[in-house]
């Protein structure tokens, strides 16, 4: 293992220290660990997210005006614990409740639910909305379901803007759900990655092979194949996204009327000719920007041929797996509301425009 670390046990704390020192508008708290906006949240819904470390800039890099109010980083590739979300939630609660945006990984879903239960005991209203946009996985009955990928970034951006516009908690939760069912992603890896704690790659990938349909924790994908050209790889990912059928599954949501968690059936949209989308060509951490733009060129060509128009795009590292080389593509179907909120000003370490 060749990494810029001092002590493998301390990587999360050490990066948080640096993050706090580098960004004045963000406060960093330790034990429990969370980062939040320095300016108090007043009379609007607070938007909180979190997940394992190693996916930077997700989520801490998206804390700031017009996006997240707080983010809770776990150990590398490990869910944060409820005490983190509990303290972060109390710190940023602005009297109108909290929206927690949660990627669909078993640990994240449960830890955020426990945190929501603890916050509710303090009289704070909380909604958890799950992001599960990874089209590589077909089946939800016999697996933990689709994983949360790039749509998370768009959901955080759009919901942060909506909170500033004054959306109440119910409306904000409904918006977040809409972004999730409008979003589809798929990723691939050219190399594996190594967590500092383990010190060895999480899977072996020979020099001439690639792994298709990966998540973001160095877990193996759905198939392995000989490496192909950028255009061919882009086509595999894009076709799978564009051809993805309406996916129906049960997601756990808080039911305020029942006062309990309940399974709600959710069905995705399918992408149709004439749709307008936000596109992310996302690097997994170790991919040069030049390669990502090569992928983008083919993506633009493939979507245009299907009559789908990319109206906004992000090309770069937005949701990563440490030093893994590879790419994921995300398409989120927009409408007037999503696009207006996406275009609203944002000022975070990793995403900034309009101000």
């Amino acid at each position, binding site marked *: 293992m060749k990494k810029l670390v001092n002590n493998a046990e301390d990587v999360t704390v050490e990066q948080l220290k640096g993050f706090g020192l580098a960004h004045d508008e963000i406060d960093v708290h330790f034990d429990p660990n969370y980062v939040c906006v320095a300016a108090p949240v007043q009379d609007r819904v607070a938007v909180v997210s979190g997940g394992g470390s190693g996916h930077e800039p997700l989520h801490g890099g998206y804390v700031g005006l017009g996006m997240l109010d707080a983010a809770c980083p776990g150990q590398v*590739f*490990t869910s*944060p*614990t409820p005490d983190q979300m509990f303290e972060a939630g109390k710190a940023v609660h602005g009297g109108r409740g909290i929206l927690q945006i949660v990627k669909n990984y078993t640990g994240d879903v*449960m830890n955020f639910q426990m945190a929501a239960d603890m916050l509710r005991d303090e009289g704070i209203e909380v909604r958890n909305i799950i992001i599960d946009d990874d089209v590589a996985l077909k089946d939800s009955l016999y*697996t*933990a379901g689709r*994983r949360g990928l790039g749509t998370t970034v768009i959901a955080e951006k759009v919901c942060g803007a909506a909170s500033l516009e004054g959306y109440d908690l119910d409306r904000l939760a409904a918006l977040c759900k809409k972004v999730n069912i409008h979003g589809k992603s798929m990723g691939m890896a050219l190399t594996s990655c190594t967590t500092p*704690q383990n010190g060895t790659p999480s899977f072996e990938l020979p020099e001439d092979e690639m792994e298709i349909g990966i998540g973001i*924790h160095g877990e193996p994908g759905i198939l392995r194949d000989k490496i192909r050209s950028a255009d061919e790889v882009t086509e595999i990912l894009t076709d799978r996204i564009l051809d993805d059928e309406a996916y129906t599954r049960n997601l756990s949501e808080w039911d305020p009327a029942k006062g309990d968690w309940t399974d709600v059936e959710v069905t995705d949209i399918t992408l149709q000719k004439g749709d307008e989308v936000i596109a992310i060509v996302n690097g997994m951490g170790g991919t040069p920007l030049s390669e990502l733009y090569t992928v983008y060129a083919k993506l633009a060509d493939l979507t245009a041929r299907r009559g789908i128009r990319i109206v906004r795009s992000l090309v770069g590292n937005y949701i990563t797996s440490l030093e893994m080389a590879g790419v994921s593509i995300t398409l989120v179907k927009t409408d007037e509301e999503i696009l207006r909120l996406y275009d609203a000003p944002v000022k975070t370490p990793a995403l900034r425009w309009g101000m």
Partner: protein
Amino acid sequence: MTETLTTAVTAPMVRAWIERSAKVLADNRAYLTELDAPIGDSDHGNNMDRGFKAALEKLPEGDDIGAMLKSVAMSLISKVGGAAGPLYGTMFLDGAKPLAGKTSLSADELAQFFDDAVAGVMKRGRSDVEMKTMLDALAPAARAFREEAAKGSDIRAALKAAAEAARQGMEATIPMQAQRGRASYLGERSIGHQDPGATSSHLILQAFSDVVEEAAQ
């Protein structure tokens, strides 16, 4: 040796259970992580060891069993992380709820503790038996405890039956295809591996049976 019935689990026995669990999980740290490597993310042993060390450190003084088990739950929730933290946390938290203020537990109360614990894990994990999870050890153990206790209220015998049921349940996870957690993404490739969560559950129940057995001798 004359066989005497164990009709109550006392607070010192519960304390010994937590101490023994911490020791056994520390001893099996590498083993649990090894089981986790092919179907998870190679951290179950480390996480459980860290969690029970914290639980032991923060275990409150006194004889309130409910308070002790609740404290264990909170330590596990904040220190284990991943999926095991909320699941084991919920197991102790939901199991301990009716036990606040109690300084000893009857066989009936323990049976209820196990049933509540299993129900809590099922609900939190939206899971059931035969999905290759800790429930494959816990659920048969709870059932075996209740059945054995109903025969003559001997807690020692019932805990022994529970630990044995957990062991069999743990071994039964080997041919199963995972339907929950990170292992489920592997589909058929998860077959042939013993579930690390069912294994740690068996270790914890075996620890309970062992300390109560030793206390009776």
